[in-house]
Each structure stands twice: as structure tokens, then as C-alpha cells.
């Protein structure tokens, strides 16, 4: 929870009630009413009638629109929505290469999109496993952000010892390295500015009585390697060609992701961590592959986070119906499982005694349906999950789709209060 000196007694009461509503769900207790989550990204552009590009670049306007949305809809928990979209300047300062965003590869009114690519080559597993940090500096970072171009010339840090350090550090005098360091410092200033504005925004929301769903996001070990290192095609063939190396890297990154997540979540003051998952869906791998590669390192990560007092919110993308029995194997009352396309009633049947649930109004209905259809979909979830004892936090399948008509979002919140109150 974010402490804010400006919180009035009334706002504190409202904040505490909202927080308690969500925490009751986590603790598998019946809340006083159905809590509602709000997680927009570029929907805020539609809501505020500005372009996606403005939303990414205009810090003041984005904060104003995000605050207006939170104050209109009064969610029980909201995503860090300023941070989620206002990153244009920081991305530009970094010369970030893994995203295309408005003005940088996509149009002014389109959302940012991730560029799937082979950021780590297949024959580089060994190099990564031997020295992850060295690999990061000399290989990975220059590939994913232009400011790091020049870091290829850095020495192997483990070779710098005693008097070898004296001459070994000459690399920092090379023009490319100096230039990179200067660009990195400049980019870091913009990142710092973005982060401080994000924290200030959330402190202001807390002062007004609105808790954040989480302040930090993390990732499963498998998805970390698949999405940000190997790329989609390569990770799928690694399941046949590089099984041992993949398992070794999974174990290595599990430890580092867990450690960095615990540090960041503790520093944020909010005990939740949002973990969108990408490669767990039913059709993405066999049960045997799932229980060999995907689930064991992630389960251990969840256990370690839970032991550290953190409340994970894995967001199970797509349809994970066949995974439900496996992912039920965690301590009860410690997580929120957010489902995208998995049938929530089925998820409730399998997981109702284990986790709080979040979701999952369908994107097609939210974007193309009528308010009456949204109302009926909310009622369905209330009748079949919440009123049957399911600890449900109502939300869209994966946040509010960018194109959702504002009246459908209003219908969602109105229906939640009508049926889940």
C-alpha cells in the first residue's frame, strides 16, 4: 500500500474498503461486494479523445486522463495506467528496438506492438549460461536498445582482477563505449522522470482513495526466454533441438527473475505483482512439454514469491483449460489467477478453493457488443461464479480492449454494482 500524506480521512476509509475487498478475495473470504479491476492501456486515448501517440508522449495529458478515468469509474484496484502508456519519451531516449510504437513504426492512433525476433542466437546459450551479465552487456543490450551500441567492446568483467583491472579498463576510453555511456546516462534521466511521474501519479490516486492493483510486473522463466531472447519460432524448435540448454537456462533465469521481482515488489510498497503469461495456453505445447519446461520453474517462482510475502497475479493468456489441474498445485489463498479466454466457471470449479479469480469479459463482446450484452455477461459471471462463492475480481479478459466503446465500460461497472453489490 502506498502511504500518502495527503490522504483525507474519507479517502482513507474508501481506500481501505477497496483494498479490503481485493484482499478478502485473495484470502478466500467473501468480500462485501464484487470488486472491480480496471486495466486500460490505449483505451485511455479513446476515453480522453486523444491519439495513442499523445498518450505515449504527453505526460500531463495522460496523467489527467488516467486520473479522470479512475475517478469516474472508481475501480477497487487499477493498473499503473500512467506507466503503461506514457513511455514514449523513455523508449525514444533508449532507442528501444523491441517495440514499435506510434511515430516509430506504427501510426499515431495505433497501440505499441512487440517485435518478435531472435534476440539471442541458438548457439549463444552456452555463452549466456557461463556469464549472463557479460552476455547482457556485450550481446543482448546492444541488440535491444540503441543506446547500448558500443557495449560490444566492453571487456569480460571476470578477466579484470588485481593489476589486470588497471589495463583492462582501458575499454571504457574507447570512443564507442564513451558514446554509449553518455547516451545511457541521458536515457536513464528520462526513465527516471517517467518512473517518478508514475510514482507521483499513484500516490495521488492513493490519496484520493484508489489502490493500485500492483506496481510491478514480472514474467515466467519460460516466457522470459521465449519472448525476449529466442523468439517464437526458435523457442518452439528448441524444445526438440536444445532441450538440455533450455532447461539449464530456465533454472538460471528462474533464480534471477525471482530475486529481482522480490526486490522490486518490496521496494514498491505494494505486495502484488502482475505476471502476464504467454506460452502456457493449451495449444501452445503438450501437457508433457508444459510439465517439463513451463510449469515447474514458474511454480517454484510463485512459491518463492509467496514465501517472500508477495501476492502474484499470473494472467493466464488465451485458453488454459487443460492446465487448470496443474496450476492448482500452489498454496491456497495466496494468489490471484487472472484468466483471459479460459471459461471462468470451469476455472472456478477447479480453482475456487485455491485462488482468487480475475477477469474475464471477452474482448470481442466488449469491443463489438452492446451495453446490454455487457450487462448480461457480467450477470453471468456474478450468478455462476461470485454468487456461488467464487472470489472473483471482475475485469475484462486482458484489461479494457483499446477499441471498447466508453458506454460498454460504463455498462460493465454499472452491472458489477447492480448484480455484485
Amino acid at each position, binding site marked *: 500500500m502506498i502511504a500518502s500524506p495527503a490522504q483525507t480521512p474519507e479517502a482513507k476509509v474508501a481506500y481501505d474498503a477497496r483494498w479490503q475487498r481485493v484482499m478478502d478475495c485473495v484470502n478466500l473470504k467473501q468480500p462485501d461486494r464484487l470488486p472491480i479491476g480496471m486495466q486500460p492501456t490505449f483505451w485511455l486515448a479513446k476515453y480522453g479523445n486523444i491519439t495513442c501517440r499523445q498518450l505515449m508522449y504527453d505526460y500531463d495529458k495522460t496523467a489527467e486522463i488516467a486520473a479522470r478515468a479512475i475517478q469516474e469509474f472508481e475501480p477497487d484496484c487499477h493498473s499503473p495506467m500512467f506507466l503503461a502508456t506514457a513511455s514514449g519519451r523513455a523508449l525514444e531516449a533508449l532507442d528501444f528496438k523491441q517495440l514499435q510504437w506510434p511515430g516509430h513504426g506504427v501510426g499515431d492512433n495505433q497501440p505499441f506492438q512487440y517485435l518478435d525476433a531472435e534476440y539471442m542466437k541458438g548457439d549463444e546459450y552456452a555463452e549466456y549460461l557461463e556469464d549472463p551479465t557479460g552476455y547482457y552487456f556485450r550481446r543482448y543490450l546492444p541488440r535491444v536498445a540503441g543506446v547500448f551500441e558500443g557495449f560490444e567492446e566492453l571487456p569480460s568483467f571476470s578477466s579484470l582482477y588485481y593489476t589486470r583491472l588497471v589495463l583492462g579498463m582501458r575499454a571504457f576510453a574507447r570512443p564507442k563505449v564513451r558514446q554509449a555511456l553518455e547516451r545511457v546516462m541521458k536515457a536513464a534521466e528520462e526513465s527516471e522522470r517517467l518512473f517518478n511521474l508514475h510514482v507521483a501519479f499513484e500516490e495521488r490516486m492513493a490519496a484520493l482513495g484508489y489502490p493500485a492493483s500492483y506496481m510491478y510486473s514480472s514474467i515466467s522463466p519460460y516466457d522470459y526466454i521465449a519472448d525476449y531472447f529466442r523468439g517464437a519460432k526458435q523457442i518452439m524448435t528448441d*524444445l*526438440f533441438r536444445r532441450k538440455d540448454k533450455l532447461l539449464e537456462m530456465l533454472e538460471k533465469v528462474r533464480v534471477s527473475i525471482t530475486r529481482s521481482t522480490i526486490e522490486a515488489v518490496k521496494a514498491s510498497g505494494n505486495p502484488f505483482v502482475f505476471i502476464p503469461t504467454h506460452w502456457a495456453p493449451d495449444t*501452445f*505445447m503438450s501437457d508433457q512439454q508444459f510439465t517439463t519446461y513451463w510449469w515447474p520453474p514458474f511454480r517454484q517462482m510463485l512459491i518463492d514469491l509467496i514465501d517472500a510475502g508477495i501476492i502474484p497475479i499470473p494472467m493466464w493468456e488465451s485458453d488454459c483449460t487443460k492446465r487448470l489441474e496443474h496450476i492448482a498445485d500452489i498454496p491456497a489463498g495466496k494468489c490471484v489467477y487472472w484468466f483471459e479466454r479460459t471459461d471462468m466457471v470451469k476455472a472456478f470449479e477447479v480453482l475456487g478453493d485455491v485462488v482468487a479469480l480475475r477477469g474475464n469479459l471477452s474482448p470481442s463482446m466488449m469491443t463489438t457488443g452492446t451495453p446490454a450484452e455487457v450487462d448480461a455477461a457480467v450477470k453471468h459471471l456474478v450468478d455462476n461464479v461470485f454468487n456461488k462463492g467464487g472470489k472473483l475480481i471482475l475485469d475484462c479478459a486482458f484489461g479494457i480492449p483499446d477499441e471498447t466503446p466508453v458506454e460498454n465500460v460504463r455498462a460493465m461497472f454499472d452491472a458489477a454494482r447492480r448484480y455484485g453489490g
Partner: protein
Amino acid sequence: MALDEAALVNAIADMDEDAALRLSREALDQGFDPQRILDLCRAAMDIVGARFEKNEYFLPELMMAGEMLEQIGAMVKPLLMDDSDGEAAGPVVLIGTVAGDLHDIGKNIVTFMLEVNGFKVVDLGIDVPIQTFVDTVRDLKPAVIGLSGFLTLAFDAMKDTVAAIEQAGLRDGLKIMIGGGQVDETVRSYTGADAFGLNAMAAVSLCQGWIGTAKAA
């Protein structure tokens, strides 16, 4: 030494890449008919497709099979007597990721599965402008169009693409299928497409239903 045909088919179908490549290379080195190698690859892909439909195989197996076929194809191509590459004749399936969307993993898998099932596929790539679809439909007269999209913005892009094809007077007799990301029956109805599919084999089944089994043609 003659090629153990069953061994090659099984190697591909069982995801044994090393054996599949070795058997193909050895057979070709000994003068084995390259066209027959391609036929065996297709036989293996029938097994892969059937296992996918039975939920024994998933995306990684389709991807791995694609990798094996690509490598064997590269060995075979220079040896084929004509330059048709065993390319299918007949109805064209036009495919592309709709305007505004840059995702192509699913589209590429659908393209691959259609091709190994004998369909001639023309892939327009990603972020395809509506007018490009319309112009290509006019030029190529495809039997089927596959519109792909991962993001929710694709719903409107699909709808607008279908509408533009209709306005151009090109919709009659043309089947349009959509797939990817959040696509479901609601989106199908919204876009005016004829059908939606949840995976690559669904796309194959739809095309087979609409224009027949291409392999037999």
C-alpha cells in the same frame, strides 16, 4: 541402397530431425527420385496433422515439422527436373495480417499447413492495407481469403477489408476466413467473414470444405 521410406516418414512424423535429414540426404546422394522424397514428406505431414487434430501434437511440432520440410525442400529443389517445385496448381488461398497489426506467427503457421496440404497460398505479409487485399483479389481471383490478426484493432480492420472487397464487387463466390488472437464467433459475425478458425488445422479443414482436397486435384 534403397531408401527405407517408412523410416523417413516416421522420422519426420516423430520429430527426429537428425534422422529425417540424414535419410533424405543419403537417398538423394544415391539418386533416389527427389519428387518421391517430397511425396513422403507430405505423407509424414498427414500424420503430423492428424496427431495435431487428436491433441497429441501442438504448435511446437508443427513448427518443427516445418523446419524439417524446409531443409529437405532445399536439398530436393536443385534436383527436380522441372521448376514447379511440386507447387500446387488450382485455387489460390490469399492470406495476410490485416492493416495495423504486425503479428505473423499464427499466419505463418497457417500458411505452412495450407501449403503442405497442397494449397497454393499467396501470403501478403503483415499490416496489409485494405486496398492491397482488394487489388490482389481482383488480380489473382483467389477462392479463399484468410485474414489474420492478433490485436483487437484487427476486428475493425477485418470488417473494413471484407466490406471493401464487397464494395469492389468481388465478394461473390469468395470465401473469407479469419483467425488469430481473440477471434471468435462474435468477431466473425461483426466482420462479415464466412468462418473463423482457432488453429492452423481449422484453416485447412475450412479450405478443404470450400474448395476440395487440394492434394487430390
